């Protein structure tokens, strides 16, 4: 077992364990923190694939943005220390079975169709190539989706403020 394999096993088991804890814990605050650990470990996998820039973006956007947003809305809507009721047994059994069969289906499809294990084909994408891809308007360039998505983000921010704005009672 090489070092890269060991790191991969460690990090991916942490991703899965914290993911399961996220959806199964009864306290919402802990759930958010487990989600944070899971996302940080995904960033660690990006590091393992030599994509430092994406790892940094993952930490900044997810941990710095989305988790903080979720935590603030938790503080605004929940009583501290409140334990959520557990879902019913039949319901969790059904969901577990469905997602397990979904996983088995996905796994068998992947086993049948996955590419040959060719370790030589690995080549890390540098940040320069991503930059060219984002702001290039020739072939393989995505400058139009880039602009559209920036306008979408602006519209979403204005919309969020407009929705959550407290109107004065008459």
């Amino acid at each position, binding site marked *: 077992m090489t*070092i*890269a394999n060991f790191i991969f096993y460690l990090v*991916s088991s942490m991703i*899965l364990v914290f*993911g*399961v804890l*996220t*959806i199964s814990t009864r306290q919402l605050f802990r*759930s*958010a923190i487990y*989600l944070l650990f899971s*996302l940080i470990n*995904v960033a660690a*996998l*990006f590091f*393992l*694939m030599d*994509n*430092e820039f*994406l790892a940094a973006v*993952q930490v900044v956007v997810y941990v710095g943005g*989305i988790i903080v*947003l*979720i935590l603030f*809305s938790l503080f*605004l*809507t*929940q009583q501290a220390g409140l334990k959520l009721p557990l*879902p019913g047994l039949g*319901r969790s059994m*059904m*969901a*577990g079975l*469905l*997602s*397990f069969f979904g996983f088995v289906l996905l*796994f068998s499809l*992947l086993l049948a169709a*996955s*590419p040959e*294990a060719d370790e*030589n*084909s*690995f*080549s*890390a*994408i540098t940040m320069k190539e*991503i930059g*060219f891809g*984002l702001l290039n308007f020739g072939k*393989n360039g*995505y400058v139009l989706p880039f602009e559209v*998505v920036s306008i979408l*983000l602006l*519209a*979403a921010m204005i*919309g*969020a403020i407009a*929705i*959550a704005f407290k109107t004065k009672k008459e």
Partner: protein
Amino acid sequence: MNYFLSNLTLLNITVPVQWYLYLSAALFCIGVAGALTRRNAIILFMSVELMLNAVNLLMVAFSNHLGDASGQVFVFFVMVVAAAEVAVGLAILMMIYRNTGSVDVGFLKKLKW
């Protein structure tokens, strides 16, 4: 650390792409199970984040495997759309809480026929 990992890449002892496929399939199914079981709207958001992250991981792994930067460009777009979705969704959640006093999605059945 970066230098160390680059050496790993040069020595061709990186992790094969299949493992990333299996990992992201498992992570996606965990997100699906969370979205199916829980009734709290915030946990539903977290499950959606887990699923989006599984897809991101898959796209980054394939983009490295094929040596094509397009996959990682799309990962940026997915992240931006996820941020927009969470911002608008949590604003809607605040309004729901203000009107019904709860964030349980079981309360929202006025549109049910």
